[in-house]
């Protein structure tokens, strides 16, 4: 299997300490690209190692990305950032749910990447590798990614 669990990319952690990612709503544009279970870290420009999609992935690549369909275009769609905040001693950020309408898609996982790393443009720096647990399919319908609640216990990116 090419997807086997969820990973925060190690390169992202480094870039975070370098101050290269701004999750504030209206700042950096993060995209979510969908892939089949044939994607592997060593293909194209993923920049990773091994045979399963893991934390070694450094970049988005179009290898084994699902085909354009309905609202889904190559490279995926832009996400809506939830501006980082904190609760207690935990800081967190999240994204709004993303729906690709009128689509016929079968995907096993996704990569979230920053297209404006360090104030740049058209960047491909990977943030997260997410496994859906099984192939998910839409047929002339909606394909929706449901993000967890944006709080200190559930948000998708939390620093405790």
């Amino acid at each position, binding site marked *: 299997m090419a997807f086997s669990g*969820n990973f925060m990319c190690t390169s992202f952690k480094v870039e975070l300490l370098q101050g290269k990612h701004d999750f504030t709503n209206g700042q950096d544009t993060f995209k979510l690209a969908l892939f089949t279970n044939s994607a592997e870290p060593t293909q194209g420009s993923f920049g990773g190692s091994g045979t399963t999609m893991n934390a070694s992935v450094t970049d988005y690549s179009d290898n084994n990305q699902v085909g354009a369909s309905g609202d889904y275009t190559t490279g995926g769609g832009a996400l809506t950032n939830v501006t980082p905040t904190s609760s207690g001693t935990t800081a967190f950020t999240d994204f709004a749910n993303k729906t690709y309408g009128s689509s016929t898609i079968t995907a096993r996982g*996704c990569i979230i990447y920053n297209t404006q790393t360090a104030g740049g443009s058209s960047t491909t720096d990977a943030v997260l590798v997410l*496994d859906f647990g099984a192939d998910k399919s839409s047929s002339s319908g909606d*394909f929706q990614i449901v993000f967890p609640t944006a709080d200190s216990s*559930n948000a998708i990116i939390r620093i405790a």
Partner: protein
Amino acid sequence: MFNLKMDLPKDRPIVGVKTTDNRGFTPEEVAEDCVKKLISISDNVDPVLRDQARAYAKDMEKVVAFYMKEAIRSDRTTVYNAIRGAGHPKLAELIRRL
């Protein structure tokens, strides 16, 4: 030394995926997601308060779904008039009857 913990749970999906075939999501389905974003109920809270909160969330789903249907109906009127104004009255009528 400070140790920042920010890894993801590896053994279970942390994003959900919802899909449909040959249709979009219904107002009720969208309302359910909407209320989950608005109201978060801990499993550890007092059972009486938890049940009350869950009942309130269910009521809110109905309210949100109602206004979504109103918005859809209103938008359909706008679409109907736009298509009718563009010279396609039959198509406009088909859309109005959806």
